[in-house]
């Protein structure tokens, strides 16, 4: 066991491992592809974090090469509706023939093969739930509109995630169910190369897989390494054992060894390790001792091997986890997507399935849209005599173009973005009050369905401390240890809010920004300590914030109202309120009032 200072910060890099990460990333991506090809339905799939580009294309092409030519590779088109995905009523065929005609869905079409999901970060939770259920069950079951069918759907899921950060990620219900998560963003063109394996070897490994055994010691080491890394899901543990077995099969062995376990630890635990874990040495050793005591047939010798494997596993997985954290592009203004997307003031969004009804429009009753029967009949009625010539015996022939669906107006959800100054001497106080305000707002907003996010700026940059959430539990956990002090990068804080507001507006939420600051920024966007540049930057991003058309509340937390803060608030188009003591009750009250007024 390597000695470690008890108070080392979590996921502290061991220099070498960290430096090697970028190179080893392609190797790992390649390894993940191979293991997946060996056990595609047991490992369920992989999430590929990467911007679209040649590297990703190369990986996908090489992955394709690991499968037999006739293996189905299907794409889940963006915006595919429920009927297309699960199968169901073939409406036009049904109307044409006058009896129910059903069709197989996309998932059933991918049975025995691979399902590609592009732009997975935009995947609606409802669709992710369908995929998750299919992954769990291995089949899809449709029963609606007179159709009842059950199709096999065992597939390997490739989730292409183009999201920039945690606020733009595929639904967790699906992420949890895929064994691997790889990131290709750090891979350079030089490192990317063709996989050094052919489908012949993969086929042999697939055959061998059934015979590969994983000893009790290795299993125990994997499970305890998981515990030490804060990986709690039994699914993840099963994935790591399956991955280790596939790795052994790849090496033409019938027994899982340390090396295989290491690969599994790196690929499965790496992305899953939770950052707030205690240093592993502290946590793992008592558990280890206990496990040795309670297992009668474990001799000291075996215990030693198990411990070694576990230590090594924890070390590699931690290194992988660290790389995973740092692989994400830093947050800032430059990752902004399309500019000025806030065209709609959008408090009301049209929907076909929730909210209050506002008439009917032409359309097909699927994907949750509801048939408006009377409107449909009305539409068909005038044509009755003309059409009856063709459709003898039918009282009222209804064609597809007659179908009408109900329209609804749904109130869109509000996202309150707090931008809080955590710099300087009064940081702790301001943050504590902001935290109080967030909690008060949340505990009060169940019925209104508001979400809350919190951006804190201090030192050299701004951080999204609390990604959009409605969960009080999560707020408490995230905000319990608040950092503070240092310079005042006000401009970065506003920039972060601009990005978040734009992203969330694209998702259909209505952003509402609350800034708590004295308006005295002294760190420029570049991180440079230059007051003049910092102020110019703040005004510039302030204008950008105004362009997002979000409503903004500016609480001046300085001891006296300052003209500078006032000027910035005007530039943003914000409602300005001096609030020298920034107390949580007052803040939450004003915010509530402002939202209600909007």
């Amino acid at each position: 066991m390597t000695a470690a200072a008890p108070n080392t910060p979590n996921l502290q890099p061991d220099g070498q491992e960290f430096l090697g990460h970028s190179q080893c990333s392609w190797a790992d991506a390649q390894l993940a592809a191979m293991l997946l090809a060996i056990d595609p339905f047991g490992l369920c799939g992989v999430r590929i974090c990467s911007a679209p580009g040649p590297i990703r294309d190369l990986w996908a092409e090489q992955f394709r090469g690991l499968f037999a030519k006739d293996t189905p590779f299907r794409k889940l088109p963006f915006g595919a509706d429920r009927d297309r995905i699960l199968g169901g009523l073939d409406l036009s065929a049904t109307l044409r023939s006058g009896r129910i005609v059903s069709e197989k869905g996309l998932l059933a079409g991918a049975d025995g093969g691979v399902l590609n999901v592009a732009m997975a970060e935009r995947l609606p939770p409802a669709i992710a739930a369908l995929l998750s259920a299919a992954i769990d069950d291995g089949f899809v079951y449709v029963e609606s509109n007179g159709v009842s069918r059950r199709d096999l759907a065992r597939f390997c899921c490739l989730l292409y995630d183009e999201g920039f950060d945690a606020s733009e990620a595929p639904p967790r219900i699906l992420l949890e169910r895929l064994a691997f998560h790889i990131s290709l963003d750090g891979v350079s063109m030089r490192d990317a190369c063709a996989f050094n394996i052919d489908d012949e070897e993969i086929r042999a490994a697939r055959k061998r897989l059934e015979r590969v055994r994983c000893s009790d010691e290795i299993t125990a080491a994997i499970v305890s390494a998981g515990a030490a890394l804060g990986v709690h899901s039994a699914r993840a543990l099963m994935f790591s054992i399956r991955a280790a077995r596939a790795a052994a099969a790849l090496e033409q062995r019938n027994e899982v060894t340390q090396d295989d376990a290491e690969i599994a630890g790196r690929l499965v635990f790496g992305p899953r390790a939770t950052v707030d874990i205690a240093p592993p040495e502290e946590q793992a050793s008592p558990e280890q001792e206990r496990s040795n005591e309670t297992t009668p047939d474990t001799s000291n010798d075996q215990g030693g091997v198990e411990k070694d494997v576990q230590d090594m596993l924890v070390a590699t997985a931690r290194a992988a986890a660290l790389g995973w954290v740092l692989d994400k592009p830093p947050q800032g203004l430059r990752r902004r997507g399309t500019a000025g997307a806030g065209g709609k003031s959008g408090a009301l969004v049209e929907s076909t399935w929730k909210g209050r009804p506002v008439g009917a429009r032409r359309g097909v009753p699927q994907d949750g849209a509801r048939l408006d029967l009377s409107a449909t009949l009305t539409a068909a009625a005038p044509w009755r005599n003309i059409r009856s010539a063709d459709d003898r015996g039918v009282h009222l022939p209804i064609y597809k173009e007659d179908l009408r669906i109900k329209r609804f107006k749904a109130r869109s959800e509000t996202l309150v973005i707090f931008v809080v100054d955590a710099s300087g001497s009064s940081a702790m106080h301001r943050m504590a009050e902001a935290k109080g305000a967030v909690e008060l707002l949340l505990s009060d907003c169940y019925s209104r369905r508001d979400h809350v996010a919190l951006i804190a700026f201090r030192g050299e940059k701004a951080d999204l401390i609390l990604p959009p959430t409605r969960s009080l539990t999560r707020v408490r956990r995230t905000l319990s240890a608040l950092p503070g002090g240092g310079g005042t990068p006000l401009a970065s804080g506003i920039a972060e809010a601009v990005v978040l507001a734009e992203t969330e507006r694209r998702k259909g939420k209505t952003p509402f920004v609350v800034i708590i600051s004295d308006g005295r920024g002294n760190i420029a966007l570049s991180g440079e300590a230059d007051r003049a540049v910092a102020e110019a930057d703040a005004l510039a991003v302030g204008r950008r914030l105004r362009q997002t058309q979000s409503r903004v509340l500016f609480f001046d937390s300085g001891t006296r109202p300052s003209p500078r803060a006032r000027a910035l608030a005007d530039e943003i188009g914000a409602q300005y309120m001096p609030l020298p003591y920034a107390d949580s009750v007052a803040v939450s009250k004003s915010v509530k009032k402002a939202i209600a007024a909007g």
Partner: protein
Amino acid sequence: MSTFPFSAIVGQDELKLALLLTAVDANVGGVLALGDRGAGKTTAIRGLAALLPKIEVVDGCSFRCDPTNTQGLCEICTRPKINGALKSKNETAPVVDLPLGATEDRVVGALDLERALVDGEKRFEPGLLARAHRGYLYIDEVNLLDDHLVDLLLDAAASGENVVEREGLSVRHAARFVLVGSGNPEEGELRPQLLDRFGLSVDVRTPDDLQERLEVVRRRDAFERDPEAFEKTWKRKDSALRRKIEKARQKLGEIDTPDDELEKAASLCIALGADGLRGELTMLRAARALAALEGRDKVTIKDMRRVAPLALRHRLRKDPLDETDASVRVARAVEEVLAA
């Protein structure tokens, strides 16, 4: 298709207990299982489905009427000419999954489109609520479900019937089911009004004990390698449990509840500030089901102590500035009020 046997689930005693109590007495109300992912919530509910005793239904009835209960028959089963010769058959009790993307028409039922288009006949096509009648309705990620759907489900679960007024249809049918919801509170919370409508709630945690975790993985692995053999190994335990449930159901009506115990349950609810009478009522029913399950004739203070956290932890009023875990608060009050 094979199911992971209920008796083979390692740990999760609270969740298993809660599910068994509802299997004995559906009136205990639904179960809300909040907590870690991959801790075995889905496995437990699927295992329960295989475990439940069979139910007697009217052959050919799409609402799964109970032939022994002549009062609760559906419209078709009560028609005189059919009623004379109701054929019955045994069926497995349903455990229906409600997918997250389900729409209202799939849940409550809707106009049968085929009949409407082809024959011009207005006929009702039963939805998931009808399918779950006399069984369980399971919702994974209940906290992510649309509010209006959750309202609708809880309303049907509480009233025991489904009333449909849409697209020119007017239908009313029995829908008595136990609602089981699971979710991770980190991804969004349920409104307190909704929390209160669930009978029992369980905190699902992944086991901290290494040996226990190891056993989880070992059994899961054995199951995935050879599901049939694994099921066979556990068959006897599952059948024993099934018989226990059957016996408890018969015994339920005879369980005696002393006033003393009732009084203590009431004072516990008052001490905790749990609103309404639902907490007390659930405690009473759950304690009774527990006594029946364990083959006793009388509810004891021990039963009350065991069911109190299940019945009460989700009914405490939320104080945003008090971070004490609800389970801890209940445990504390139980020690004070229900001292054994």
